[in-house]
């Protein structure tokens, strides 16, 4: 790698079950102000801006164009957008900084799940001819994966319950679900409510900077030592749901296995998916997994993956981690996965 690039600031909104009183832009604005204030940068100082969101959550086309008005794109800015979780927007921004076209980047993402029925909405991202017409919902698909894991002897319901409980014991003030949460009734067997993420609206933003610029903007930048993402086949019938080869390959490419990580922020919306990811990433008990609570404590669609990178970076900023892993996922049953390795300067 020819250029060092770091996450120098992270901000996020509270994740709330319903935000009827605010528009997406109103939800996003305080987060943008927060992340820029942390660096002292203004919109006009930013070299490249990239965002992630999804029209299907907002229920209308071009929903991201109004967020751009909120950014304050005047004079005109160099800007792009991915129709995916903001983690992939961060990846695009990272390549932009890597090529030398910009020294700083603003990355943000947001999603409101409350206007629709999320379980139904997510069925629309399945194969439109053979699968989507059957409306298999996201919890049912995750339950298939969980059952496959149990059948393979990789986990049991007690371990899954413990993952849910640990995730919600976080002291993260931004978490939507905190404190003792009962494992609850079955939602779709073998998943109980405690194994499933809360449905929430939220936004996240980070600032990236290259080289000396990063050191000037942040006392202890979270250097991106590697970042990679991979996709798997779409059809669940051709995948081994108990494994995540795309996560493993992305981790290899990002350099995860070169040295141990002390922290891992995993985007695992279902407790069973943490089991899959731990195996693919070869994480043992020496790594602290999801101190933020992860997606089981707050899962704002399109922002939860970016928030994992932000949470991992923030721990490095605060001196609570020296080498952290961050993971984001997209698609049913962990179809697409992104892995980043972040490091702080030696203390």
């Amino acid at each position, binding site marked *: 790698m020819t250029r060092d690039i770091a996450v120098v600031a992270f901000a996020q909104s509270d994740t709330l079950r319903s935000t009827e009183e605010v528009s997406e832009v109103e939800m996003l604005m305080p987060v943008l102000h927060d992340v820029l204030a942390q660096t002292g940068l203004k919109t006009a100082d930013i070299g490249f801006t990239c965002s992630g969101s999804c029209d299907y959550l907002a229920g209308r086309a071009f929903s991201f164009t109004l967020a751009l008005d909120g950014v304050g794109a005047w004079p005109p800015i160099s800007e792009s957008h991915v129709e995916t979780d903001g983690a992939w927007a961060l990846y695009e921004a990272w390549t932009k900084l890597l090529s030398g076209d910009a020294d700083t980047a603003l990355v943000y993402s947001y999603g409101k799940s409350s206007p629709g029925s999320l379980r139904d909405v997510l069925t629309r991202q399945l194969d439109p001819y053979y699968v989507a017409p059957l409306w298999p919902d996201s919890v049912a698909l995750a339950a298939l994966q969980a059952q496959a894991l149990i059948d393979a002897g990789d986990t049991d319901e007690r371990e899954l319950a413990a993952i849910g409980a640990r995730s919600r014991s976080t002291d993260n003030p931004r978490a939507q679900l905190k404190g003792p949460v009962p494992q609850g009734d079955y939602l779709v067997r073998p998943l109980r409510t405690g194994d499933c993420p809360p449905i929430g609206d939220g936004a996240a933003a980070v600032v990236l900077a290259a080289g000396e610029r990063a050191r000037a903007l942040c006392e202890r930048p979270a250097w991106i030592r590697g970042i990679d993402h991979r996709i798997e*086949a779409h059809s669940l019938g051709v995948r081994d749901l108990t494994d995540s080869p795309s996560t493993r390959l992305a981790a290899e490419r990002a350099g995860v296995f070169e040295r141990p990580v002390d922290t891992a922020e995993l985007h695992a919306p279902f407790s069973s998916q943490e089991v899959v990811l731990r195996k693919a990433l070869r994480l043992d008990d020496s790594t602290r997994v999801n101190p933020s609570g992860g997606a089981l404590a707050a899962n704002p669609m399109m922002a939860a993956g970016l928030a994992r990178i932000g949470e991992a970076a923030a721990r490095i900023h605060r001196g609570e981690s020296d080498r952290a892993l961050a993971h984001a996922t997209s698609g049913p049953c962990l179809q697409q996965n992104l892995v980043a390795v972040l490091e702080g300067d030696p203390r």
Partner: protein
Amino acid sequence: MSKEPVAVVGIGQTKHVAARRDVSIAGLVREAAVRALDDAELTWADVDAVVIGKAPDFFEGVMMPELYLADALGAVGKPMLRVHTAGSVGGSTALVAANLVAARVHSTVLTLAFEKQSESNAMWGLSLPIPFQQPLLAGAGGFFAPHVRAYMRRTGAPDTVGSLVAYKDRRNALKNPYAHLHEHDITLEKVQASPMLWDPIRYSETCPSSDGACAMVLTDRAGAARAPRPPAWMLGGAMRSEPTLFAGKDAVSPQAGKDCAADVYRQAGIADPRRDIDAVEMYVPFSWYEPMWLENLGFADEGEGWKLTEAGVTELDGDLPVNMSGGVLSTNPIGASGMIRFAEAALQARGQAGEHQVEGARRVLGHAYGGGSQFFSMWLVGSEPPDA
């Protein structure tokens, strides 16, 4: 720090038509991708990453279709990135892909953009009402017609200019086997006699709704050296965005478009675009946008764009040919339209454009825009590599 030069070594597109009922979305995109790979004489195994773009998901009714398309595009086990920047997306997608090569993240990238508009209804996809916000007025034409009027009033352009553009582009399309509209009996009189849709925009001055896909294989210097046919080299590329609606916006000639072009020219060392650029594929969904963009892109002084059109400068055999392929006016799979402009520019620079080839085209501009004239993406490609 130096960037890796980016070469276009493969280009493929589908024959664009109103409805491809014979293929699924996956079948459609695969057709374009296979043609691009064949052109580059590469296989799926040679592709390091896939970057895919399209306009709103509501146009097909599939949320994040890249997930479902991973298999069809040979992306399994590879990075796949999805871009969405409204109508400019085809261009932006190519630029994001190019940056992966320029940053030396990947050597060979397949980039593709598509729209299968027959799966849904773009008019409805664009007309979802939002409380307290102005909806797009009866599709894109309703939104853009007032800006065309403003241009006419501002420049004193005679009301015949729009029909000249449409007549030219539809004739150019006859030379392009992939173009959607092949109107063999087109005459200027027919264009002028077509029904008025959104005054001053007539039916024959608007783009069709198409199903189609366009793909390119982008690679580094080593990849270009192995290419079987001449590559097109990227000499400059940029994106710019500005807000949709605000009091200071010039909807006739947006600042973001000017800034974007200036950035591309700076990268490519273009001092005088009118002299230094041989041909232009620009995003003209309504005929009047040709003279408007000629000014916005610096090919004519303010108020003078229509004079170039009227004088025949932009004809296929003119001094500055514009939309040799027939343009968006003849083919409009929305999400792919920007990439088709970029790909046509590359075809011209490679000397591979067949019947609509501009003789001696060495530096060609590809242009795309989207939203309420707020998103811009452009690249300049040439037959020679950029200076080392």
